[in-house]
């Protein structure tokens, strides 16, 4: 390398190190607060998805298919939030799910009634979909009305169909102009129900008792 290249390498190295340090410092100092805020968002979302909820129990799904009670939101495994009213009556479960969308991974939660095998609510937790188009999956009232009673029973996959062509209770009517994001929601729910519903069915009595 000739002598004129050294200042360039030196500058880029120092700037990269400084930038990396700045990001790491910010991450270290904000991680606790971010986790705390995420926990608040999660609890609020569960309360919105299961109206009348007074008590919730968080279960972690083990790779073996067993459920263990979790005290917080630590760990990365999929979680179930079982909701109960003031009298201890079981209201349903809220399940975390994620799927690759148009821009990045879409994280969401949905309410599932294991007795009727229907999805009764859907809420986006985090996404980076295009503002004004894809991000309407979290706010468009017409789209969210798909999840008031979406059939999630075995035998037919949950699928997103073109806007205005929904015919069956297990179909999701896509948002016009946001087809990729709408389809991602369909794939997300289908995969999540297929993997989680058997675990819930297997442990339903225990979940209803809340132990």
């Amino acid at each position, binding site marked *: 390398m000739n002598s004129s290249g050294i200042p360039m390498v030196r500058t880029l190295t120092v*700037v990269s190190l400084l930038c990396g340090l700045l990001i790491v410092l910010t991450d270290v100092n904000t991680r606790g607060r971010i986790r705390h805020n995420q926990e608040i968002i999660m609890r609020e979302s569960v309360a919105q998805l299961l109206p009348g909820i007074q008590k919730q129990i968080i279960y972690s799904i083990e790779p073996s298919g067993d459920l263990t009670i979790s005290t917080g939101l630590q760990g990365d495994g999929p979680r179930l939030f079982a909701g109960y009213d003031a009298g201890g009556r079981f209201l349903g479960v809220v399940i975390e799910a994620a799927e690759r969308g148009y821009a990045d991974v879409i994280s969401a939660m949905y309410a599932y009634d294991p007795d009727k095998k229907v999805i009764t609510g859907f809420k986006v937790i985090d996404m980076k979909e295009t503002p004004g188009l894809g*991000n309407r999956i979290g706010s468009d009232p017409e789209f969210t009305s798909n999840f008031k009673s979406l059939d999630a029973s075995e035998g037919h996959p949950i699928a997103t169909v073109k806007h205005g062509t929904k015919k069956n209770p297990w179909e999701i009517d896509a948002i016009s102009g946001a087809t990729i994001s709408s389809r991602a929601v369909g794939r997300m729910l289908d995969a999540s129900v297929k993997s989680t519903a058997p675990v819930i069915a297997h442990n339903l009595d225990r979940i209803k008792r809340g132990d």
Partner: protein
Amino acid sequence: MSEPLSCHPAPPPETTDRPFLNGLWRQNPVFVMVLGMCPTLAITNSVRNALAMGLATTFVMVCSNGMISLIRKLIPKQVRIATYIAIIATWVTVVDYLVKAISIDVYKALGAYIPLIVSNCLVLERPEAYAGKKPVGKSLLDGLGMGLGFAFALTCLGTVREVLGAGTFLGVPLFGKDFEPWVLFLLPPGGFIALAMWLLTFTLWRERKEKIRRQAQQAELRQALEVIL
């Protein structure tokens, strides 16, 4: 050589001793320099989105301008763009973390837009045109002025689009139930139409002001000549 054709009048010369006002008004990034068109057109479909994007961009511009100005004498010319991009991307990441940590409500409003700041050419243009050559204080003021000027322009566009396209301002309904929203203004063509309307208004206003200034100068000159003669 003849002057190149331009679709908009050339911006007025920069007044270096007033960096804040330059960015805010005289060299407004959107209405005068026509920079940062991607976020300007993409996310001005509501006033709230426009304000959120404008303020987040302001923060990134102030921080990146300040840091670049501080180390400007150590940056070789050949690697300046790479250095600027690394610094800007760092500050965008920092803002993303900070907003997530500070307030859930602000994050809900801003979250989707923060990563888009990296793609805004205005944020890269200011270090190249100003902060890479000027002292820290002036560079910070330049970042603040340009950022707030950008936020102002975005809010102007957002206001027209939200009022006409949804009949609301900051989500508050302005008209009765009989109002039929002009949905076109919420869609991409509406962004171009609203931008064209604002650019036309701003350019006509500026030309008129310039004409008045020239007439005043000529009158002064005439008076001075009369006194001399």
